[in-house]
């Protein structure tokens, strides 16, 4: 502009002349700026202005009037838009100008009687010719860790305005010397620390304290592929630090994660209780899985959870649930739960159920730092939910239930036999036999964990070496899960542009199941059975009953004799069942900064896992004891299985990050391939002489008529994604993601599927008008996102026609191959559309924050197994049918209730509500409902007492189906049922089945608090839920349908109908018929439990130093210690629940 101006004098002669003198003058000024600026203060005059809401122009006019100085703007300076309040009394010119221009993007210089106002553009200083160091101030200082006060070597120091080349770097003592101008802003950066800006005020030595990055984690979102600023991100994510997790539940990573976000639900696994070897069943934001319509329908416990399992990412690589369960909690830096489409779209096909991103700790440079963690975990079985009868009560119940009255439907024993039997038991009862079987297989379990971590290094090379030893015995004797792991991580920055990172982890895990078997066996044992005979020898057989043969097969006799075996005898015959895996995991990554804004990253991860399982059934076991005598030399069996799993994953990422003016853009281009191969082999050997020689080498032979087992499964995926994030002035946010995802699980026709997401956001709190209008609101962020995600969590061969070789059964003319099932090559991705609206609100400087999400999740083309007419040659096949929606709201509240010098109280609360509905089901699925009723009616399936799953459009997947009941008729102890037409009946008919309840809770969540007082820290968290229905299977199985020959719930004796006029909940005590699912057992499930309490104490820094430590923390965490519920159920059927107490010590050297 200027150039053009000078070369066209003819046209603008007048104006040039006029301005030229000024230009010349100003050029001179610019050269001597440094010198003259200082002298500007000498032009001091008394200035007095007192005006409100005026613009700069007006103020300048006043100054001009009062001082005679004129103003000059060489660039386009806007002086009318800025409004300011001015209150100056007899100020010097410098004071007045400083005051007026403070906070504005303007600078001034005074030349003669002219005040030159210039823009202060970013990078303007770069345009100034480099000055020799002696023109600048020399600034000395040192950089220390804000917490530990340790000096930090290798810290880079930049000018805020010029970020390309550092001014200096701290030496190995953490000292630095840089040269800068007064008013410059220095930026101290170091990996693992928050960048710190320091203004140059004078040349006094500085002490710069850097704060560690971890504490600021809540301000970023790690989506597994990149780290984004939370404020400019529209996706919905919950981030929890490893520290927080550990405080919540140091013994169980998954439980800890779930308690921070109630939208993740750990399935109420009543079967496996607190079994250390049972993997939790997770669902995320309501169920989407429809059942498989196969032979093994329909019990809720059979439903595979994998269809709803969130995807796990560990340090940028896909991980399994088991890997996360076995992860050393001390290694976790953060966990991020990605929930909506905008957050998860980058994962494409794996994202339908949310993504849980786990990152492990990054080594910090500095002197060698050792951290030692010790944990002692105490578990005590929780038997409070079991109410069994004692010996005398049990016998009384048996008599009432008619066990000692002849009944050909039950037994062919004569009255004499029965009397004899009764008296035999009575003799036991009278002689004081009253065994408490429940406690027999249980123990208080003491687990421990020791982990050691060493880290250090400098800015070019950092390392971390860690090791762990952890034992987790369960409350059933003999069950345990032990982990040993070690790892090594290094970060190598050969230059500012290049970063290499390698992480190696080796894990050995060993799990052993209790030889005591199912806990339910002990619950069912009669208390009048002695454990040992008079000589103290363990009894094998406790009782022998003649009963009607349940088998209706041809040739079967009408009555059979049934043994009651002593489970404790079986537990001591030497059988075992254990499994182990050895895993080597190596992740290598390289980041290359092509320019300051453009980064190329590559990552490669390799996981090799060898899983083995060994199952030995002792030759002394009952399994063989009752077997044919001709097979004596085949007693005892050993089954060995090995599964070698090799997983690799490679990624290339290109990220671009640039800010200019108020614009900020962020791009990620990603391409990733992954492979998972399972190679399984196994065989069974039989014929062991005794239980001492359990080595497989002692086996006599392979199992008869069996062949070795082998399988090889590979699944692969390819993920290509382009993500863009744009922010304008940190006010307006836009996120866009496009994703092409391929998976080997899909048919040839649908190998790739595009998914996308879009998000819009508004940071209202960054708007000026908002600040003035709502000063109390410190944060007001509104985001709306929409998009699609897919799901591929099913077997790899559904979309292909696969033949299996009948290798164990050759035909006389060669081996045969038969078709497995219909390969539906039209099988398409199951797609979920997620729309979400989020409001993040912060009040009073974020003392109170509220985040609320509202989502609408529609899963279309749910993969459903369809039953076909068998004449097609298939019993069923898989197709995309059935749509399910989940609509819900989630609210997260944190409140800093009280803050003072020594005390800080935070309150947190969460609430989620999810409404589930089947939107559309295919006709075939409707036919499924019919088949369910038939299935239930067939006595051979033993499913008469369990409410089976049925589906109806508009109703929740979790609807409970059964017949409506009016309760028990006091007249005769029979149940009064309501037919579909409203009439009453005593007869159960499957045709009257209708919805009788909905298991979906109206609301669920957590509330808790953390309180810091001096060195103490207290944390507790309650979990609550209300409004859902629950079908109380315990009451059916253990009270009404209980086999009176075994021990039952105490209510079977005390609360059942016995004589006309008894108003009871339970039917006639003598009625041994089957109780079908009716609304009688549907109960409201309102419960509250204290899921964790932690108390910790940090010794003071002073004391720590004295004993040669940097820090020392002692803490105590208790989990699952209290529960109050509106329903009474027996919890933990195969394995009891346990209460958990963990003592911890963490010391840093």
């Amino acid at each position, binding site marked *: 502009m200027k150039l053009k101006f000078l070369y066209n004098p003819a046209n603008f002669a007048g104006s040039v002349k006029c301005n030229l003198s000024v230009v010349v003058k100003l050029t001179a000024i610019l050269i001597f700026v440094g010198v003259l600026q200082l002298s500007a203060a000498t032009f001091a005059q008394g200035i007095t202005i007192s005006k409100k809401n005026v613009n700069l122009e007006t103020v300048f006019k006043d100054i001009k009037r009062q001082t005679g100085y004129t103003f000059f703007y060489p660039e386009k300076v806007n002086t009318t838009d800025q409004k300011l309040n001015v209150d100056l009394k007899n100020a010097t010119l410098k004071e007045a100008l400083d005051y007026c221009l403070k906070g504005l993007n303007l600078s001034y210089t005074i030349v003669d009687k002219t005040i030159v106002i210039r823009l202060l553009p970013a990078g303007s200083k770069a345009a100034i010719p480099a000055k020799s160091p002696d023109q600048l101030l020399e600034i000395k200082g040192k950089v220390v860790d804000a917490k530990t006060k340790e000096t930090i070597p290798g810290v880079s120091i930049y000018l805020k305005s010029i970020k390309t080349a550092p001014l200096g770097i701290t030496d190995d003592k953490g000292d630095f010397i840089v040269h800068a101008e007064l008013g410059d802003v220095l930026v101290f950066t170091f990996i693992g620390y928050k960048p710190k800006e320091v203004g140059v005020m004078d040349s006094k030595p500085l002490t710069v304290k850097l704060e560690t990055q971890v504490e600021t984690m809540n301000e970023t979102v790690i989506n597994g592929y990149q780290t984004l600023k939370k404020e400019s991100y529209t996706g919905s994510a919950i981030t929890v630090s490893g520290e927080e997790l550990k405080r919540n539940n140091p013994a169980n990573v998954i439980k800890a994660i779930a308690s921070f976000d109630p939208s993740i639900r750990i399935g109420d696994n009543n079967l496996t209780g607190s079994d250390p070897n049972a993997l939790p069943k997770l669902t995320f934001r309501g169920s989407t899985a429809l059942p498989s319509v196969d032979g093994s329908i329909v019990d809720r416990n059979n439903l595979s959870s994998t269809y709803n399992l969130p995807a796990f990412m560990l340090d940028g690589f896909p991980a399994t649930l088991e890997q996360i369960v076995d992860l050393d909690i001390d290694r976790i830096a953060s966990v991020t739960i990605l929930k909506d489409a905008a957050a998860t779209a980058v994962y494409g096909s794996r994202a339908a159920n949310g993504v849980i991103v786990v990152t492990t700790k990054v080594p910090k440079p500095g002197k060698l730092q050792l951290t030692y963690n010790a944990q002692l975990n105490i578990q005590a079985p929780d038997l409070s939910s079991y109410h069994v009868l004692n010996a005398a009560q049990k016998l009384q119940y048996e008599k009432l239930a008619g066990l000692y009255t002849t009944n050909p439907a039950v037994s062919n024993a004569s009255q004499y036999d029965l009397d004899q039997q009764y008296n035999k038991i009575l003799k036991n009862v009278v002689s004081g036999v009253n065994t408490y079987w429940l406690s027999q297989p249980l123990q208080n379990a003491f687990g421990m964990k020791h982990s050691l971590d060493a880290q250090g290094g400098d800015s070019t090379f950092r390392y971390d070496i860690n090791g762990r030893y952890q034992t987790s015995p369960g409350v059933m004797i003999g069950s345990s899960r032990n982990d040993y792991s070690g790892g090594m991580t290094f970060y190598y920055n050969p230059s500012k542009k290049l970063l290499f990172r390698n992480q190696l982890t080796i894990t050995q895990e060993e799990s052993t199941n209790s030889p005591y078997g199912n806990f339910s066996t002990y619950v069912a044992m009669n208390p009048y059975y002695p454990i040992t005979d008079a000589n103290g020898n363990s009894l094998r057989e406790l009782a022998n009953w003649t009963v009607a043969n349940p088998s*209706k*097969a*041809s*040739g*079967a*006799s*009408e009555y059979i004799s049934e043994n009651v075996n002593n489970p404790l005898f079986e537990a001591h015959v030497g059988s075992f069942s254990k499994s182990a895996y050895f895993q080597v995991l190596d992740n290598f990554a390289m980041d290359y900064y092509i320019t300051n804004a453009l980064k190329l990253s590559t990552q490669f991860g390799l996981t090799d896992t060898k899983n083995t399982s060994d199952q030995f059934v002792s030759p002394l076991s009952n399994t063989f004891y009752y077997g044919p005598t001709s097979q004596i030399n085949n007693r005892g069996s050993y089954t060995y299985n090995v599964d070698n799993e090799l997983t690799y994953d490679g990624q290339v990422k290109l990220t671009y990050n640039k800010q200019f003016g108020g614009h900020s853009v962020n791009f990620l281009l990603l*391409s990733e391939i992954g492979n998972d191969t399972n190679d399984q082999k196994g065989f069974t050997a039989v014929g062991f002489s005794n239980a001492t020689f359990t080595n497989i080498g002692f086996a006599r032979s392979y199992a008869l*008529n069996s062949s070795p087992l*082998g*399988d*090889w499964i590979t*699944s*692969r*995926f*390819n993920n*290509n994604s382009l993500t863009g994030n744009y922010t304008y002035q940190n006010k307006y946010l836009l996120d866009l993601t496009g994703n092409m995802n*391929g998976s*080997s699980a899909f048919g*040839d026709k649908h*190998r*790739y599927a595009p998914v996308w997401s879009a998000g819009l956001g508004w940071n209202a709190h960054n708007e000026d008008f908002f600040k003035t209008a709502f000063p109390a609101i410190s944060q007001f962020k509104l985001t709306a996102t929409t998009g699609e995600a897919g799901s591929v969590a099913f077997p*790899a*061969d559904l979309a*292909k*026609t*696969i*033949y*299996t*070789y*009948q290798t164990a*059964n050759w*035909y*006389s*003319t*060669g*081996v*045969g*191959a*038969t*078709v*497995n099932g219909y*390969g539906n090559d039209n099988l398409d991705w199951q797609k979920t559309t997620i729309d979400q609206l989020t409001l993040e609100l912060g009040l009073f400087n974020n003392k109170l924050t509220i985040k609320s999400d509202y989502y609408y999740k529609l899963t279309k083309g749910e993969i459903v197994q369809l*039953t*076909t*007419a*068998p*004449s*097609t*040659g298939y*019993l069923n*096949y898989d197709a995309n049918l059935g749509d399910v929606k989940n609509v819900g709201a989630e609210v997260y509240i944190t409140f800093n209730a009280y803050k003072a010098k020594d005390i800080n109280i935070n309150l947190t609360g969460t609430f989620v509500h999810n409404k589930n509905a089947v939107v559309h089901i295919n*006709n*075939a699925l409707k*036919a499924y409902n*019919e*088949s369910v009723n038939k299935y239930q009616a*067939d*006595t*051979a399936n033993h499913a008469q007492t369990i409410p089976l799953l049925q589906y109806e459009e508009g109703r929740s997947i979790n609807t409970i189906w059964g017949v409506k009941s009016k309760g028990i008729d006091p007249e005769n102890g029979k149940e009064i049922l309501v037919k579909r037409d409203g009439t009453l009946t005593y007869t159960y008919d499957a045709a009257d089945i209708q919805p009788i309840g909905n298991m979906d809770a109206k609301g669920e969540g957590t509330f808790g608090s953390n309180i810091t007082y001096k060195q103490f820290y207290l944390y507790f968290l309650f979990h609550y839920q209300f409004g859902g229905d629950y079908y109380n299977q315990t009451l059916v199985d253990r009270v009404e349908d209980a086999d009176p020959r075994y021990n039952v719930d105490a209510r079977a004796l005390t609360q059942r109908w016995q004589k006309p006029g008894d108003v009871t909940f339970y039917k006639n005590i003598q009625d041994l018929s089957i109780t079908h699912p009716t609304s009688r057992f549907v109960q409201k499930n309102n419960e509250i439990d204290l899921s964790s309490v932690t108390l910790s104490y940090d010794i003071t820094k002073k004391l720590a130093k004295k004993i040669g430590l940097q820090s020392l923390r002692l803490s105590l965490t208790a989990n699952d210690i209290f529960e109050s519920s509106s329903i009474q159920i027996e919890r933990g059927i195969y394995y009891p629940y346990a209460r958990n107490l963990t003592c911890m010590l963490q010391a840093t050297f």
Partner: protein
Amino acid sequence: MIVFTSCNKYLDVKPQSQIDETKLFSSDEGFREALNGVYTLCASTNLYGGNLTFGSFIGTATSGGLDVLAQNYQFSDPVSQRIEGFDYTDPTFINTENTVWNTAYQAINNCNYILAAIDGKKSIFTGNDYQLIKGEALALRAYLHFDLLRMFAPSYASNPNAKAIPYVTQVTVKSTSFSTVSGVLDQCIIDLNAATRLLINSDPILQGYTVGYPGQQGQNEDASPDLFYQNRRHRINYYTAVGELARIYLYKGDYNNALINAKFVISGKVFPWTSEADFFSASNTTRDRIFYKELISCWFVDNAPVNAEVNSLYLNTNPIFSATTDQINNIYEIAQDGGDDWRLKQWFVTTAPTQGSDLRAVLLKYNNNAAPLKNLHPLVAPAMRLSEIYYIAAEASYGNGDTDGALGYYNTVRKNRGIGDSVVTVADKDAMNELLLSDARKEFYGESQIFYMYKRLNHGIPITPTFTRPPSDQIFVLPIPLNELIFRNN
């Protein structure tokens, strides 16, 4: 796009312990394996290795075999008694018939996979394999459909236009509509005619093949170095297809065609009658218990599961399947001229009962020697016997008015079963049928064939010597499985 194409290849994972359809059907070997797969299914306990021959599942001992319905045994347990009494609502029975239906159609579907792929792959075959494999697959498809028809549809004699079963020729999840009885028979004939045209030029059994006992001199059963060409009679061969045509024409009452096809098998002279020496051999290892050389086709079931099943059914101390000796003596007409019948002498052993007071006769047809003793022949389930072809020829000749011819065929069988005196006159057609039925019942004991014969002739089923259950669709037609009716999708 180039990236996606190459990635597509990457994502195309081929399983190793199993095999992709396209890969299987890319070689001659693969087609052979697929065909063997059909035989494996047929020989399974669900079909001819169990329910459709001996009449039971392994271990669970649930009966449903058609020989039970033919009143060949006597049971003491209520479930078998109900089934024996034609109670087709019994859950055990329903279970068994569902298994039969499902597995038979599974086998048919496996044939259809081969037939759908084979014509596009003609060039990959060596020798006559294309004709042989396609011919056998077609014949198997017809064979299985015909047996399903004989179980689940009314007989042609009862109602040729009744709704029968679906005749499935396509690989699809869309259900095929039901054909009528005559429609199914026509489709069977089409498939079998196509099969015979393919097999006539390719089946080794037509190329100087000598039937015999495995391992013996001069026979071709296990002579070929290629396993696939051994044991032609363990698979559907040319003569089986022809014999099946004879069966089907007779089922339709088409005596002409039935006779032509039956004669064709007989005149081939491939299947010699069993010698007395082999049948009565004193040595356990050299005794032919099943008239092995007379089997035109049989299912190879010499595997552990079927051995175990046969043992539990017939050979335990208290076998599930046994008749009283009185019952057997009655079936074998000991009062008339059946006393010399080889079959009575060699197939049954009398044991003292553990339940009840009647002596029981236990079937030894499927007896197999305890290891390490070898049998003269492997354990097989008969699929088609030479004697049946003679019965067909006899019945068809009589139907054509050739009484002497009919008696000639009948007497040939009698003679080869040790009954010396020939029958020279027969009063009428019913008498002829009675002659054939009574011999067939002896011949087919434990093979589940006699039920089909009663049904075809719409003949009553003799319950006791004095009482015969009159013929009706109620006893002859097994109900179509419920799933087949509920889950049809068109």
